[in-house]
């Protein structure tokens, strides 16, 4: 049964990219466990605005787990303590009366804080621009079976395509590595005929951009996979390694 709970939230406040941040604790009364986590922050912000304070800045858009813009490290987990969901899909019934909830931004050199809980994830767009596409127009959807694709390839490509680019993988990684993201983007195209043609070139240019932007070296700890809201598997990373090494050895 959902009840109303009284909680405290410990929120990271930071005025700007260069400013030093700190935690601030706020009390919230009668929060319905049926409300979403982001609604709880909306209520907090209303309370702050009414009290003449600056609202907490945080990223949100679709609020249904598909756009990939929401973030937040909640109680030590990217996207909160629930499994395989984004922060916007997290509900207050995961928390109890009297809890203090710690809310932090993604912390990684590749994702500098803009303000409060909002971080700059432009780096991911830059990596996509480096090669995460198919260069020619491949036309509309062809007739089914006119282009046979093995089922396991189609499924692995779809699984990789589930990546919403939220950056939880980088946030969770002790090495600040973006390999799970890049490997998903390389895999979703490499396994399908339209994307296969440029697969090696794509792997090389996306990895080069990723390195240039200062993301870390993957050491296969697997922390990313555990925290990914879309369950992207680290076997994609093995595929990326394979594509990249194959391309380099042929050069």
């Amino acid at each position, binding site marked *: 049964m959902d009840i109303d709970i009284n909680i405290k939230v410990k929120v990271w406040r930071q005025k700007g990219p260069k400013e030093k941040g700190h935690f601030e604790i706020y009390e919230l009364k009668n929060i319905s466990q049926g409300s979403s986590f982001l609604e709880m922050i909306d209520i907090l912000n209303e309370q702050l605005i009414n009290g003449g304070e600056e609202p907490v800045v945080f990223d949100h858009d679709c609020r249904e787990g598909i756009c990939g813009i929401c973030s937040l490290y909640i109680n030590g987990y990217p996207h909160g303590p629930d499994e395989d969901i984004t922060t916007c899909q997290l509900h207050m019934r995961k928390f109890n009366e009297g809890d203090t909830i710690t809310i932090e931004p993604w912390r*990684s050199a590749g994702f500098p804080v803009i303000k409060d809980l909002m971080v700059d994830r432009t780096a991911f767009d830059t990596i996509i621009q480096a090669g995460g596409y198919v260069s020619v127009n491949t036309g509309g959807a062809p007739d089914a079976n006119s282009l046979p694709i093995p089922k396991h390839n189609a499924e692995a490509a779809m699984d990789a395509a589930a990546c919403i680019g939220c950056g939880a993988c980088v946030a969770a*990684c002790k090495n600040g590595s973006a390999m799970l993201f890049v490997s998903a983007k390389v895999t979703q195209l490499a396994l399908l005929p339209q994307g296969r043609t440029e697969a090696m070139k794509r792997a090389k240019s996306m990895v*080069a951009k990723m390195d240039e932007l*200062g993301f*870390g070296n993957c050491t*296969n*700890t*697997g922390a990313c996979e555990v925290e990914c809201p879309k369950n992207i598997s680290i076997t994609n990373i093995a595929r990326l*390694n394979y594509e990249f090494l194959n391309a380099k050895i042929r050069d």
Partner: protein
Amino acid sequence: MSWLINSSIGRKFIMSISGLFLILFLIFHMLMNLVMVFSMDAYDMISEFLGANWYAIAGTLVLAAGFIVHILYASLLTLQNQKARGNDKYAMSNTKDASWTSKNMYVLGFTVLAFLALHMIQLWYNMQFKELIGAPDAISKGSELVVPLFKNIYYVIIYLVAFAALWLHLTHGFWSALHSVGWNNTIWMKRLQNLSYVVASIIVAGYAVVPIYIYFFYQLPI
């Protein structure tokens, strides 16, 4: 070839190949050690054979290069990764599902390195190195050093602790090395991870048998 140092996957490739090379060496070294359990005389023959001659020296140099590359790259990767992580630490972090071992490869590697230094001083220095510089007290029969060493319980314990660190390093290292060169997929992931435990256990058990055998069972010839 500059991609082997300039790109992250290139660096991982070197890490992986050097690690796999060291594993091959470990297996070779372990098999030689095991001879001691069956016959000390046979072991002494092997250690005399691998004294200061060109093939043993060439082997030693290649091996040293393997270690140096592995350690240099390990340090480089660790430093770069700390930088990529940034200085801001999480106040609370609960992402503990990633194994402790996988996050502490550098610490474990350094434990192995510290042991390696001790091991080189105790054995290699007194055998191949002294023979190389023509020192009169160079020892060519391995058992003359190894047996007294492992009749000392403290050294037995130090060696066993080092083997434990090595075991941990290899339980992550083996599958990780194959993953780094792209040899993994959803079907093989679990198999390779389990295989890592098998490989690490066989290697470490092979090493651990010798000090335990010598301490408890080996009788010095009177």
